[in-house]
């Protein structure tokens, strides 16, 4: 087996540390992520799925355990620095975009993810055609709204924009945190299909939290079941392909 692109070793996190209410959220997570993996993650509320993403993205530092990126220990690297190789789409469409900036301004910001922001003109016009072509791949009319403030977009368009922003500069790790959950079933299915296309075409390494068991089964090459702060099942390759919806229902 090749060296994993990202690895978690015995990750534990606590809340309300040093108080009577102290409790452990992640109770020793071990996870090796290979380049090109598309991992779907399911689990009940409070299982620790979002905490796991916060630990991976660096917005929460673990209380114990080690995180490796391409073999390097990055446990204490800040979220801002991890953004050089990692991007994230949030569940709430409002969290992923700047509301009073236009669609193309948002894309331009995202295109320089993790890079130094220089004191030179932003060069928005140079990128317009590229952005229009990119927006058109979402098939929801986003390409006609490049100069619209994102607060005036529909939830579906806004979330599609968040996804484009997360992938416009190829991330080594893409985190999708129930990114279709706030949308209606049609829009959600549409965005999910576009997401899958992009991930398979660009061979992205992605982790996706979802409450749709069907989506968790249909997409990706690996499926994790989280429960009470631990990974209780890890289905890879053929084991995942053989999995059925009723098997899955019994597990959570």
């Amino acid at each position: 087996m090749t060296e994993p692109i990202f690895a978690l070793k015995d990750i534990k996190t606590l809340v309300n540390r040093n108080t009577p209410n102290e409790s452990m959220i992640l109770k020793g997570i071990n996870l090796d992520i290979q380049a090109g993996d598309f991992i779907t993650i399911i689990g009940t509320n409070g299982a620790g799925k979002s905490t796991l993403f916060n630990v991976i993205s660096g917005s929460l530092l673990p209380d114990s355990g080690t995180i490796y990126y391409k073999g390097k220990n990055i446990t204490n690297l800040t979220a801002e620095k991890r953004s050089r190789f990692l991007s994230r789409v949030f569940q709430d469409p409002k969290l992923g975009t700047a509301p009073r900036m236009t669609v193309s301004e948002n894309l331009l910001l995202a295109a320089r993810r993790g890079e130094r922001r220089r004191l030179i003109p932003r060069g928005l016009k140079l990128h317009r055609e590229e952005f229009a072509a990119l927006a058109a791949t979402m098939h929801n009319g986003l390409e006609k709204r490049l100069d619209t403030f994102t607060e005036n977009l529909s939830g579906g368009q806004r979330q599609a924009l968040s996804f484009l922003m997360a992938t416009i500069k190829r991330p080594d790790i893409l985190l999708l945190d129930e990114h279709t959950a706030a949308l209606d079933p049609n829009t959600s299915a549409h965005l999910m299909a576009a997401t899958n296309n992009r991930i398979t075409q660009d061979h992205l390494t992605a982790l996706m939290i979802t409450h749709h068991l069907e989506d968790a089964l249909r997409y990706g090459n690996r499926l994790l079941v989280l429960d009470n702060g631990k990974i209780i099942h890890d289905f890879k390759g053929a084991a995942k392909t053989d999995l059925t919806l009723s098997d899955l229902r019994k597990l959570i």
Partner: protein
Amino acid sequence: MNLLTSAIGQGLLWSLLGLGLYLSFRILNITDMTVEGSFPLGGAVAVTLITNGVNPLLASLAAFSAGLLAGFITGILTTKGKIPSLLAGILTMTAIYSVNLRIMGKSNISLLGYRTLFSANFLRKLPDYFDSVVVGLIAVFLITVCLIFFLNTEFGQAFIATGDNPTMAKSFGILTDRMTILGLMLSNGLVALCGSLISQNNGYADISMGTGTIVIALASIIIGEVAFGELTLSQRLVAVSLGSIIYRILLLGVLQLGLSTNDLNLISSIVLTICMLLPRLNELVHLREPLFRSLKND
């Protein structure tokens, strides 16, 4: 006519205050009380330096730098110290009051007999009050152009995103703490520069000249927004200066009605309150329309 010229001149000079506060209030979404301290700080630094023989232009730049420092302190308190921004601003503002007294040594310093930015030869040949219009125009033009350039750089866009959505900004690697600190510095620098110009124009610096500055600044921002509506960011900056001029003309009108300059803070607050209530009043009026219609039908 003289009064109108004076109002326009004052509006232009004071608009630097509005532009400064725009950076924190509208772009960073922070109500920064530091300005109540950095405005008189700018006046105190400039006037003290000028009375000690420093060139007025250098003295004004020194005032700008002092404002940068004031903003830096509030920025550090609120980002690294995690003190709520409103409280951090009040702390710095209160501290600056004592600093201003230390700088000036007394509560009022006159510039009588000293050369200021307004005593250049070509300005003195102009009709009354045109000196402040010319100095104001030059300052507003230079600063607006610089701000528009800045906000349209990669860095400036990251600055805007920081205020607009800090979670998103962080997830794209923008150092939001640093952006907030720099924004507060720039904002207070402009406010202090404005304080130094106003002091030089008035011919004195006074320890109490900061009272009410935040209301005046907000008034020019909000009058500009109410008067001109939906605009691009660059146009909004121009609207702030126009708002500041409109505000001065409004004050002029009120003073003509017989109120005294002692009432200025009361008037400022009332003008700002009305402007801030306008959107709400508009809602209420719209709500009543169907009501009136149904009454007529009966």
